[in-house]
């Protein structure tokens, strides 16, 4: 059997199967979509995409397909080239598995929505754009996918567009992503002008790459993956429905920035400046997000900040020159983060729209499956040994501890790991345990297979994915093999310290002590004062500058005052002064005559 043919054909068949619900209704009026057809389409694509992954695991076969070439200008051709290597072959089944589960869940979650089919089409369109991004070998195709996921994110966040907060959040997402797009376009322009190509194969330079395109790529990743500085859009994006948060803002879209850095990694590996920048930026992001998550009360915001923190951890891994480990963390993180969001969606619907964890409690007896899976997800997030998160997170922290790098970044990451344990445990304790604080008449019901099977499927993935992926994939760089015992168990010790701290703090909440405000809790609650400072300051300066330059300087000054109107006002002033002299009396004229005679007399003297 011709394995390369099977590999390529089945990958393209996956993409083609996903596009059928979009194309077929355009061709005929009888073929209308329903949520169940779209869910089944994604399930079929998932099953088809398992075969190329199996071929890769069996014979380590990668493939590079190049179709029709766009002759952009002479000497610069852009082929449609798709790269089926370890990253795309492994990410396709994972993304499709998670999307299938989310779509199945969404058919229950959005059942009361009149435009549910449009919702599903949007999610499908997003998925196609994301997969195009993953499989692209060419920065041009990647850019198409990049913009596609950005636009679908905008449309999906503002799904309930009657709500002003949702519109603001969607606008925020688009504006921040646009800033990152500038970075990506900068890199593309630099590559086109100096290397005359946009292919990923041709941009691996053995010598030290100039820093400018790398800075552009880091800017693009900062915006798309919500690193510190361009991060406010991710917590605000929780205004969208829970399936949107689960698919876009936890598993797939936000990892696009990290994925871009993984794809262009050969350029990074020889530039220590860019690597250090990634490291420090990632460490700062992970600590900042973990600090903000400590005092949030909205269940979706806590999970959003934990996503942001894990994205910072992925950026740290890129900064350590370990792209494969970052990809492993992306894959395992997709499972448990999507599951956490689906569990929170089930809880929110069961409590009739309640999202505040201070009004939940004791749900373990009322929603047994959901809360068990929530516990599994939280344990995986914390990096509990041998669940999915452990294989990637512990490996990252081991590599951090044993490599020669910035100590500040290391300390920040360890502190963020312990904070992860703190807010995760806080979430679990407040939502599941203790006495219940929900209103008496809540429609608590999880007895729907559309709810239970996605969540349990993802729970199975959260437990086994790390083990399966690390068993079947050979690492490209040798992991650190020996280290002192204290270094080896650093991650677990730090997590255990976080758990102990959280348990102590939760005991304090049950004693009637007045909570005091101090600067740290204020910093955490207001998300680091970042949003008001940057939004108002930047916008005010921009608008003031714009008004000064465009309106005051050009319109009013140049065109009016120094031009016609100024001339007119000067003339008016002069003529008003001169009018008093024109009296029309002969005496004045004769006086002028006498003056001229006297001047003549004086001048000839």
């Amino acid at each position, binding site marked *: 059997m011709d394995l390369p043919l099977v590999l390529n054909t089945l990958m393209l068949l996956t993409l083609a199967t996903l596009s059928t619900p979009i194309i077929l209704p355009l061709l005929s009026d009888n073929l209308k979509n329903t949520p169940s057809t779209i869910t089944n389409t994604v399930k079929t694509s998932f099953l088809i995409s398992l075969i190329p992954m199996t071929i890769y695991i069996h014979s380590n076969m990668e493939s590079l397909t190049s179709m029709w070439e766009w002759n952009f200008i002479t000497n610069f051709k852009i082929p449609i080239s798709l790269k089926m290597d370890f990253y795309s072959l492994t990410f396709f089944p994972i993304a499709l598995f998670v999307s299938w589960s989310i779509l199945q869940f969404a058919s229950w979650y959005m059942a009361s929505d009149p435009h549910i089919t449009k919702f599903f089409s949007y999610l499908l369109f997003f998925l196609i754009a994301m997969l195009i991004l993953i499989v692209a070998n060419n920065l041009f195709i990647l850019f198409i996918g990049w913009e596609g996921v950005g636009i679908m994110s905008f449309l999906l966040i503002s799904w309930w567009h009657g709500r002003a907060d949702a519109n603001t959040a969607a606008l925020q997402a688009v504006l921040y992503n646009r800033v990152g797009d500038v970075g990506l376009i900068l890199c593309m322009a630099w590559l086109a002008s100096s290397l005359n190509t946009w292919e990923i194969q041709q941009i691996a330079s053995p010598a030290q790459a100039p820093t400018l395109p790398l800075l552009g790529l880091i800017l693009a990743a900062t915006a798309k993956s919500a690193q510190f500085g361009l991060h406010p859009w991710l917590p605000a994006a929780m205004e969208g429905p829970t399936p949107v948060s689960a698919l876009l803002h936890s598993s797939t879209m936000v990892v696009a920035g990290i994925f871009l850095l993984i794809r262009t990694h050969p350029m990074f590996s020889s530039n220590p400046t860019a690597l250090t920048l990634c490291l420090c930026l990632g460490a700062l992001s992970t600590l900042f997000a973990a600090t903000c998550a400590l005092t949030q009360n909205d269940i979706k915001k806590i999970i959003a900040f934990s996503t942001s923190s894990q994205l910072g951890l992925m950026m740290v891994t890129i900064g350590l020159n370990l792209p494969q480990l970052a990809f492993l963390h992306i894959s395992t993180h997709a499972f448990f983060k999507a599951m956490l969001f689906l569990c929170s969606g089930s809880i929110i619907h069961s409590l009739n729209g309640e999202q505040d964890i201070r009004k939940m409690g004791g749900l373990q007896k009322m929603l047994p499956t959901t809360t068990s899976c929530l516990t599994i997800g939280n344990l995986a997030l914390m990096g509990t040994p041998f669940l999915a998160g452990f294989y990637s997170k512990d490996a990252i922290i081991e590599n951090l501890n044993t490599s020669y790098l910035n100590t500040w970044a290391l300390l920040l990451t360890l502190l963020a790991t312990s904070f992860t344990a703190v807010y995760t445990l806080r979430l679990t304790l407040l939502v599941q345990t203790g006495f219940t604080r929900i209103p008496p008449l809540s429609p608590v019901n999880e007895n729907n297979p559309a709810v239970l099977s996605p969540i349990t499927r993802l729970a199975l993935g959260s437990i086994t994915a790390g083990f399966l992926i690390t068993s079947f994939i050979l690492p490209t760089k040798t992991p650190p093999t020996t280290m002192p015992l204290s270094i080896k168990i650093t991650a677990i010790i730090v997590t255990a310290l976080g758990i102990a701290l959280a348990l102590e703090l939760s005991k304090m909440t049950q004693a009637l002590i007045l909570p005091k405000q101090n600067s740290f809790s204020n910093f955490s609650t207001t998300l680091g004062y970042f949003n008001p400072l940057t939004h108002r300051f930047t916008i005010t300066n921009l608008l003031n500058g714009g008004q000064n330059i465009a309106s005051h300087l050009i319109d009013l000054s140049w065109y009016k005052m120094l031009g016609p109107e100024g001339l007119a006002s000067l003339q008016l002033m002069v003529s008003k002064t001169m009018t008093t002299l*024109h*009296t*029309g*009396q*002969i*005496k004045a004229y*004769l*006086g002028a*005559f*006498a003056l001229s*005679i006297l001047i*003549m*007399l004086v001048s000839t003297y």
Partner: protein
Amino acid sequence: MSSLHLSFYSAFVLSSLGLAFHRTHLISALLCLESIILSIYVALTIWPIQTQTSSSTILPILILAFSACEAGAGLALLVASTRTHGSDHLHNFNLLQC
């Protein structure tokens, strides 16, 4: 300057100032105008004698002719104003006064 030049120069200046400062009657202005013309005539007569260019001797004759016309025009204005206003006071010429 020589006393000859001083004579017609001072006549000219004094009559111009007189034209400017006699503000009651039109006839005093006309008289001063006549003395201006007279001083110009004298200056123009002395000039070809001083520079010995005999071809310029026609100039005083021309000035005389023009001054006669001008005096006639001035007197006609005087008569017209006396006929309309009853006197030749200069404050009657006030059509252009704003």
